[in-house]
Structures are given as C-alpha cells and as structure tokens.
C-alpha cells in the first residue's frame, strides 16, 4: 500500500524541529532513518500528517567523549557506530550491537535515536543501552530532561517520550577497570530481527569476581528489559560455570514471552538462557 497523504518538513535546527512538532502534537512525527516508520506508514499502521525530518540536522549526529561519558547524537547511524574504531576500544558492545542490525542498507540510514524512540520489541539498541545503564536526553517544548534507559521503555512500542519531545542524545558512562562486553543475537531467518538478543556488560573486580553486570534482553517480551534477576545472581560470584548457569535461569523472570511461527514462548525463553550464558562467557573471555 501507499501511505496516507502527509506533509514533509526539513528543519535546519533541533529547535525548529521541536517547534514543528509543537505545532501539531497529534499529527506530527519525527523522521530520521525511516526504516521503521516508513514501512509502518506504507501499511497504514502509522498515519502521521506531518513528517519532521531531522536526519539532515548534522549537529545531531556525533560520537564524543566528555570526561567519563560517551555522548552519542541521536541521528548517528548504525553504520557510524559499527565503524567507530574508538568505540571498538572503549565500549565494543556499541559497534557489535550496531553491526548486527538489519543489513548494510538499513545500517546506512537507521539511527540509534530512532531505534530507541521506536522501541520495537525486538530492537537491538534498546537492549544495548539498557545493559549500559544509559541516560537518554530528551528535548521538548518545556525544555530538556534526562531519563534513565531503564525507565524509558514503558510498554509495547511505547516509551516515556511525551508529545512534542525528541530524543537528542544517548549518554553512556565509559566502562572502566576490568570490563568485558558482548552482544548475542539469534536472527529470525526471514526478517532478521532478534528472536532473542542479549546485551552483556560485565565489570570485574581485581580478583576476577563480578563487580557488576548489565544484562538486557530483547525479542522475548513486549519491550527490551534488564534481566535484573540474572544481574543480582552474578554479582560477587567468580563467574564460574555453575554461577552462570544458576544466574541465567532467571532471565525470563516475570516476563510473558512472545510466541510466533518461528519460536514458541518456551523455546524463546530457553534460547534466552542459552544465549545469556554464552554472552556472559564471551564477555568474560574478552576482559583485559
């Protein structure tokens, strides 16, 4: 099908974009890479009256470091994140997650901000930013506010973004000390979306025991979530096989798993356990 008729504007600055959204709080929608929104518009699942295209606002795409923070502009593409040598050194979960998304064409256009704001139940970025305990900077008609990732993903395709707000930056504390990261993804053979996607961010004490773990899961529930049960079970352990096995048993606690033609809920939870285990083992092996 073709989309319902719509207007299209290309603001030159973020302030202009916010003003355009404010002019039509119900009917305006932000467009960045468009690889989730435009298919939805073609199916008429989304019928915005005004598209506000922020992809051309160059100042919104960046990867910077300030102090102990990594700052990523919302319209930074998956490709830019995948190919950042600096990130491969200081926070490799980000390029590894980016590289697993879609295909080359999708990664050239899709943005980290768009993926987070869209909050697809199988989206990869939500899992990565949850595991990294990221802060999300939102800007709207009432100014700016910062929200923790774990409060941002509310429900199926629903985030804490209020009408008129735009996600403008992702902030991640630079991993420090002895850390290891991994992104494990089981791609659906047709769509390529995560049947399960597990993001792992481990920080170790000097003696090799687990100081903290960020473990986030996508593809299993209505939204990406932190597997806090797994995280708590790992903390303080030596991350030996028994500890890991006991911990990953909690990966679906409190979650009603998705079920589809390719994978039932039971199997999905089982895959989540297997891949959480493998993700933790990989992250541990990568610790310097």
């Amino acid at each position, binding site marked *: 099908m073709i989309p319902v008729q719509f207007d299209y504007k290309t603001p030159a600055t973020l302030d202009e974009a916010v003003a355009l959204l404010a002019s039509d709080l119900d009917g305006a929608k932000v467009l960045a890479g468009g690889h989730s929104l435009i298919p939805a518009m073609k199916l008429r699942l989304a019928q915005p009256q005004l598209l506000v295209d922020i992809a051309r606002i160059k100042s919104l795409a960046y990867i910077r470091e300030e102090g102990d923070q990594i700052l990523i502009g919302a319209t930074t593409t998956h490709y830019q994140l995948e190919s950042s040598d600096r990130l491969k050194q200081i926070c490799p979960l980000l390029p590894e997650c980016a590289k697993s998304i879609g295909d080359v064409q999708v990664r050239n256009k899709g943005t980290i901000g768009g993926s987070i704001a869209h909050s697809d139940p199988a989206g990869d970025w939500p899992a990565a930013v949850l595991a990294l305990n990221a802060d999300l900077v939102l800007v709207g008609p009432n100014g700016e506010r910062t929200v923790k990732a774990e409060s941002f993903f509310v429900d199926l395709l629903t985030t804490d973004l209020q009408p008129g707000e735009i996600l403008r930056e992702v902030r991640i504390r630079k991993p420090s000390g002895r850390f290891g990261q991994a992104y494990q993804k089981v791609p659906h*053979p047709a769509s390529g979306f995560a049947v399960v996607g597990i993001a792992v961010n481990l920080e170790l004490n000097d003696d090799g025991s687990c100081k903290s773990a960020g473990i986030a899961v996508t593809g299993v529930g209505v939204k990406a979530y932190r597997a806090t049960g797994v995280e708590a079970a790992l903390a303080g352990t030596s991350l030996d096989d028994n500890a890991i096995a006991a911990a990953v048993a909690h990966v679906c606690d409190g979650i009603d798993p998705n079920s589809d033609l390719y994978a039932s809920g039971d199997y999905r939870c089982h895959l989540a356990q297997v891949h959480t285990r493998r993700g933790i083992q990989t992250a541990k092996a990568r610790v310097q």
Partner: protein
Amino acid sequence: MIGIGLSTYVEICALGPSQAMPAGGWESATVRIEPTGKVTVLTGASPHGQGQETSFAQIAADELGVNINDVTVIHGDTGVVQYGIGTFGSRATAVGGTAVYIAIQKLKEKAHKIATHMLQADASHVAFEGGKYSLEKAAAAAAATGTSDPVVPVGEAPAGALPEPQTEGKTSLTIQDIALAAHLAKELPPDTEPGLSATYFFEPKNFTFPFGTHIAVVEVDRDTGDIEFLRYIAVDDCGRVINPMLVDGQVHGGIVQSIGQAMFEEVVYDEQGQLVTGTLMDYALPRASHIPEFELDRTETPSPVNPLGVKGVGEAGTIGATPAIVNAIVDALAPFGVKHLDMPVKPENIWRIINGH
C-alpha cells in the same frame, strides 16, 4: 551431534517425446548465416536465466568455426521466433540445443555444396575445418595462383564496399565467403536456393536420465537445535557439458532452493484461512549467510537420445539436495530414535526432540 545424509537420484529430463507430452515435446530452431557472415540463431526455447544465450552461441560457434561474438541468439519474441515449446523440464539444451545443432548440420551440408562448386572441385576433396572449406593438399597445389581478397577481420565491419569475391584459383573459402556468395547468388550450383538458412524441429525419441549423489554433513547444536553445515558434496551426471559454469550455476541454485525447502520455507494459514506467512518478513527464503560452501564434481555419460549427448541439469540440485539435507539431520538425531522429520526442519523442532519437550 553430527549427521551424514546421503541421497542418490535418477531423474527424467529433456521433456520429451510428443506422444508423452500434453502439447508437443519437440523444439524448434532456425539458424541463419547473414550476408555479413554473422550468425543468427532463433530458438523456440525460452531461457529465463539458464544461459542458453551463451551455450547455444557456443554450439553455433564451435560447429561453424565462427567467433562466438558473431552469434546472436534470439528467443522469447513471438513476433520474430517461430513457434517453440519452451524452457521447463530440463529440456532447453537437450531438445532445443539439439534442434540448433541439427539445423546447423543442414546449413553445413548446403555450404559444402556451394563451396565445392565455387572451388570447382570434387565434393570428396573439400573439407571443412576451422571455419573454412579447403581443398585437400594435392588439389590445392594445382589450383593456387596467388590472388587474394581483402581480409576483413572477423567481428569487424568493412571500411568500404567490398569488391566481388574472386574465386579463380582459390584453395579455400571461409564460411563467411560462402554466406555472402549464397546471397549474391552469382555462383551457386544449379538448382540451389539462394540464402543460407535452415530450420529444424527436433522430436526426441526418449527422455533423458541424469543421475547423481549428494552428501550433506551437518552439526546440530544440542542447546539450541541450530543446524550448521559442515560439508556439502554433490556429484552429478548431466551428460555432455557444454558450459561448466552454467552447469555449476544450475546445481548451486538447485541446492539453495533445497535448503529453503528443507529448512526454511513454509506457507501457513490460520484457522480462519488467513495467510500468516504473507510477506518475506515471515516467509524465510534462504540467504547467502545460510548457504555452505559446495564441493561439486561431475561425471559425463553422454546421452544416446540426442547427438549432443546432453541430458539437462535444471532440477538436479533440488532433487539431490533436499533428501540429503533432511537425511543428515535425521542421522544426527538417530540417538533419539528419529527416523523421519517433516520439512521445514526448524531448530525448535530439533530442540524439542533432543530435550523430550
């Protein structure tokens, strides 16, 4: 958990004798050598990726001794090409290629007659080789006088009008010379139609029977039920091979389609009759990342059914591969008493079998 699956097949190809076909099993070809010496092949076969534009040009080039770039193969335009039956049932080269081949033999017969006449020799003293009709050595020595015509390299257009061909004292004539002479019609043998064009409708007396063996070696992941190919080997016999790359391509494509059928593709309706696998987001086609390296080999047992010895190879890959793959997965699960699996074999099915869920 490793499994080895084997499949040996014999298939029926090169459809087929008209008695056994619903609306004709022959195939048509017209081959013309134009006054310019270029060759036009009109075929009733209708390739859509199988590559007969190349392999039929190869047949013509080999048989006529012309440059392959001087051969044009035309198909599919019903305003231009005589009626044909088409491309299916692995028949285009075995039946259509044979029609081309036999039409060319008719052309060569006529060209030989014209050459013999123009060289003023006995038919038995004129031989065709390398695109030329030449007098045997003894007769050649008697005829040589040293004149020669301007030479236009094959594949190029002449810079100006050519003088009339001189055949006094010639010891050989190219097939392009013959083609031009056939159209100028000044030196044709008595009772010879001008032009150099032949049409043939080849009626095969039988089907052909290609065969082969495929072997798949897979590893099943105990934890997830994922299936990984460790090796994939195929040895097929499609008779005489005209173009090895085209044959390999057909086998590749067939194996990939089998991987799709064995492991990914299914059409599913819900209880209300709604198509659930309605788009490529749900209907999984095999992709490059799903495909193993293939180890391919061949034997060539020429078919007695047609003068080319060709059997056909369009479907061999799909026939050999699907059972080899499923057999391999069944073999990997043999410790669990598995003797059969429905397709597509999906990781969850395998996980349930292994874990008794």
